[in-house]
């Protein structure tokens, strides 16, 4: 059932011009970022000696990609559940023999499938470097994995926030606010305690994501993303379940 819901949700995304427009804009912005990093790299050959091509271009590209996705995700996830509330299709889902867990997972994986297609498209740009230069595949794959985990976390966050509101626009604004707080929470640690092992630093998505883009695969980072995904999915399930009591 989860698969049915996920495939239907993904199909519906691709039915609308909105998703195609987002894909096109995301691709264009990434192409621009790639061009900037590559031209800067080519203009400063001294960096070339100290750092590798992957370290400069690919790592920088994926770090910027995280920021672009932070801006785009709220618009993608805002309708996930709030539209069902608004149009009444939530009543179809709640009166069907589908558990709330499967319903939320179906919606989530539908969005994740769409985001994976975005990751593939976006990753083709730096992959083109293979044609003319040696690439550190380890770092490249770590960065892709980091982006996948980042988007899975963004999707879970957006899904939960969308479950709280009937108006998609409010869901988008709140998702953006939550993601921005998570993204920048490390700033609180560096200004106050100055240590990297504070709670605020651990909570920072950027901190964990950058480790991946720099080619480091730490289980701490992986666990962080998994905890965040599970947390927001559980909150989403709890919210939908509670809707029958407090609509």
């Amino acid at each position: 059932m989860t698969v049915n819901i996920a495939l239907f949700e993904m199909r519906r995304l691709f039915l609308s011009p909105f998703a195609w427009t987002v894909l096109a804009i995301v691709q264009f912005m990434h192409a621009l970022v790639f061009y900037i990093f590559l031209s800067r790299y080519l203009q400063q050959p001294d960096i070339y000696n100290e750092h590798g091509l992957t370290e400069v271009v690919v790592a920088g590209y994926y770090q910027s990609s995280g920021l672009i996705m932070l801006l785009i995700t709220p618009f993608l996830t805002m309708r996930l559940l709030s539209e069902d509330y608004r149009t009444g299709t939530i009543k179809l889902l709640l009166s069907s023999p589908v558990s709330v867990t499967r319903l939320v997972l179906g919606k989530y994986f539908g969005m994740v499938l769409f985001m994976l297609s975005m990751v593939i498209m976006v990753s083709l740009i730096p992959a083109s470097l293979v044609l003319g230069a040696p690439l550190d595949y380890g770092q490249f794959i770590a960065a892709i994995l980091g982006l996948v985990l980042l988007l899975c976390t963004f999707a879970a966050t957006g899904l939960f926030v969308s479950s709280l509101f009937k108006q998609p626009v409010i869901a988008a604004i709140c998702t953006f606010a939550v993601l921005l707080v998570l993204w920048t929470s490390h700033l609180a640690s560096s200004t106050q305690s100055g240590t990297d092992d504070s709670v605020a630093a651990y909570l920072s998505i950027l901190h964990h994501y950058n480790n991946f883009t720099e080619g480091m695969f730490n289980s701490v980072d992986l666990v962080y993303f998994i905890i965040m995904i599970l947390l927001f999915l559980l909150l989403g399930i709890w919210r939908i379940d509670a809707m029958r009591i407090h609509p």
Partner: protein
Amino acid sequence: MNDESLICARNLSRYYGGRRAIHNISFTINRGEIVTFLGPNGAGKSTLMQILCGVLAASAGTVTIAGHDIIAEPLLAKRQLGYLPEQPPLYTDCTVDEYLTYCARLRNIKAALVPHSVTASKQKCGLNDVGKRLIANLSKGYQQRVGIAQAIIHTPDVIVLDEPSAGVDPNQMIEIRELIRDMGREHSIILSTHMLAEAQSISDRVLIIYAGSVILDSKLAVLDEPLEQTYLKLTQDTSIEMNRS
């Protein structure tokens, strides 16, 4: 008609904050019965239907669908349930076929049987010619038919229709009534309406709901006077009593 009880509601109450939506409602509906919930706007008909379908939780009381409690065994109970809410739950960016296929899958119909179920429900609701059209481009009457089609696609034992003839033209209304009567032979059907004539022409039993309570539960055949007179008398009397208290 037989005496197999398909819907059993016991002491249902629902409060929105401090406001009482329905209070202590109990009834049983057997297979083959078509029951109409009749009442003015805000009487609690839609709330009651949502509780019966597991969309809303009751503040107190229990609902059993075909022997399964809607809270304790929701998946088993909901398999036997088809529900058309007041506003048809449609994905307007899909075609009718895509939408009904999705609904069939949601209702656990086996993959091999899905096309047959879609065709059969389209046939019953007169949607054969619009299968490939976007739901958004259909008239309100056709959208209502699509809503009914999704409620009957899995041939459930219990069909709950909240104002099924809202927004449809007189011709379509007659067709929908015939469809409901036809389905009523094999299933239990609950429908809500404001229209007394509709209640009289389709159903064989009526529950008049007023201010969250059932003030009449009777078979139409045993009413001494026309339904219209009974309805007006009961709702006015109840209103006066409530004002006094």
